[in-house]
């Protein structure tokens, strides 16, 4: 395993969209090892009352620099938004089993919601051939980094629930539309990260279309190392039903393996 603890130095911490921040670190160790879909576990500096680390998908990782896109939603991320360049932040990573390398015999379809676009960026950046990104959200503000995918030569299709950007509707609508038109000509391979409802919908599509879908799950985590069992997901792998640690065996699972809870 190549997980390490690293004292990363903040290069930049600035608003990226109205809701998300870009946090860029100098973290030569972790950035070098980072694979698509993996995450880092961030210790909130100077706040010993905030005990648990916070998990964030690795957005970019190159030449010693690591970045994440995070939304300020609670006490940990609110404190993160106050950090400034030069400060040291303790990172644990890279963690987890991320996305596999896209199968070049298939059509690579990324499906993203919320921070999912960040989580999927490295998959696109390191894919041999560009594919398509379907990204959605409530509105324009939820579309995080379409331009980064476009710059890689990817075909970016957007959908927002309020119609403020791209097609009016859910991201699965535009995915379905694509499938209806192209599904026969090329077998898709799906890579998804986003809200639970979207993930379930993507898993549903994979089943209907009889294709592979890689799903990145988001459960609450304490250790990030497979030790505390906070983050388990019921899966069926090789015919055996069991609980897998999302932090270690995930966050990415094949859709077929995942045994969804009723809710």
């Amino acid at each position: 395993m190549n997980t390490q603890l690293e004292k990363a130095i903040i290069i930049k911490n600035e608003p990226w969209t109205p809701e998300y921040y870009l946090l860029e670190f100098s973290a030569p160790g972790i950035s070098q090892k980072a694979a698509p879909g993996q995450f880092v576990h961030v210790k909130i500096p100077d706040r010993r009352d905030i005990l648990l680390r916070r998990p964030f998908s690795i957005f970019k990782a190159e030449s010693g620099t690591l970045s994440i896109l995070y939304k300020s939603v609670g006490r940990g991320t609110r404190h993160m938004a106050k950090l400034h360049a030069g400060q040291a932040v303790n990172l644990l990573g890279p963690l987890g089993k991320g996305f596999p390398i896209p199968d070049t015999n298939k059509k690579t379809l990324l499906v993203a919601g919320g921070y999912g676009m960040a989580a999927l960026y490295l998959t696109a950046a390191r894919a041999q051939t560009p594919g398509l990104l379907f990204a959605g959200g409530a509105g324009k503000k939820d579309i995080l980094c379409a331009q980064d995918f476009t710059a890689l030569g990817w075909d970016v299709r957007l959908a927002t629930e309020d119609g403020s950007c791209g097609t009016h509707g859910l991201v699965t609508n535009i995915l379905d539309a694509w499938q209806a038109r192209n599904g026969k000509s090329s077998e898709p391979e799906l890579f998804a990260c986003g809200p639970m409802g979207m993930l379930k919908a993507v898993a549903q599509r994979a089943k209907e279309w009889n294709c592979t879908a890689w799903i990145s799950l988001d459960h609450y985590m304490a250790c990030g190392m497979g030790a505390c069992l906070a983050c388990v997901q019921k899966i069926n792998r090789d015919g055996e039903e069991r609980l897998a640690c999302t932090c270690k065996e995930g966050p990415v699972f094949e859709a077929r393996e995942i045994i969804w809870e009723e809710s």
Partner: protein
Amino acid sequence: MNQPDLRVNLAGIAMKNPVTVASGTFGYGPEYADLIDLNRLGAIVVKGVSLNPCPGNPLPRIHETPAGMMNAIGLQNPGAKAFIKTYLPFLANYDLPVIVNIWGRTIEDYEGVAELFEGEPGVAGLELNVSCPNIKEGGNSFGTHPDLFEQVISAVRKKTTRPLLVKLSPNVPDITVFAKTAEQAGADGLSLINTLPAMAIDVETRRPRLANVVGGLSGPAIHPVAVKLVWEAARAVNIPIVGMGGILDPEDALEFIIAGASAVAVGTATFHEPTTVLRIIEGIEEYLLRHHLKSIAELRGTLKTGAR
């Protein structure tokens, strides 16, 4: 100056230093082995193991609180046999006493799991987690009912020749009653404290933060509660004590030792900073040096409560 002697004989378990990890916060060994040299630990206490596999509780299982966290993992574990097969051989590669935390829902469960480990040379001792409800006795907790408490310890004592630590529940009006009962029932040592029963609510959804509704509070928030209970227990019994609850800094561990603990266990702090356990060992050593104490034994139970 000479290095102070950190060694501790914990109820027959030879520890190279007084620092171990709290059950359930360090997995079964492999989880942190790439980050931390396991050979440096005084001992490892593994996640609670039961006779049969246990799936644990639904998610969410954890929730963060001010200077603490709550968990309701629900004692998920692969069962004693799988533990023996998968983890004991791994742990045998280290110069590390293995203390197995065991639990059950009936006295027979406890007996069964204790017996299983009798044949395992890789097990240095057992830690009895009694904070579980007895399903046969209407769900009364073994840890807070003196009779059940006495019964389960006596029963396990008959089944094991290994050093037997009993892990006390903090949730009782007088810890000395349970400490003494454990000693009389044959415990070789005590571990305390387990988590405090707690609960949190998401006011927006009006749902409990944990699927299990109630969970156990751990972390620095509970440290002063733990120190008080360790101090009281240490004065009530003659068997050694492993102090735990909220250790984050070396000083927190030293408080337990000064209060009378022979060893300490680092729990929740490992999630915050995986290397905490090493920093605690170093901090204790540094303290002994600075205070010109030749061994950890010279510090144990030296609280001065007289007039100032």
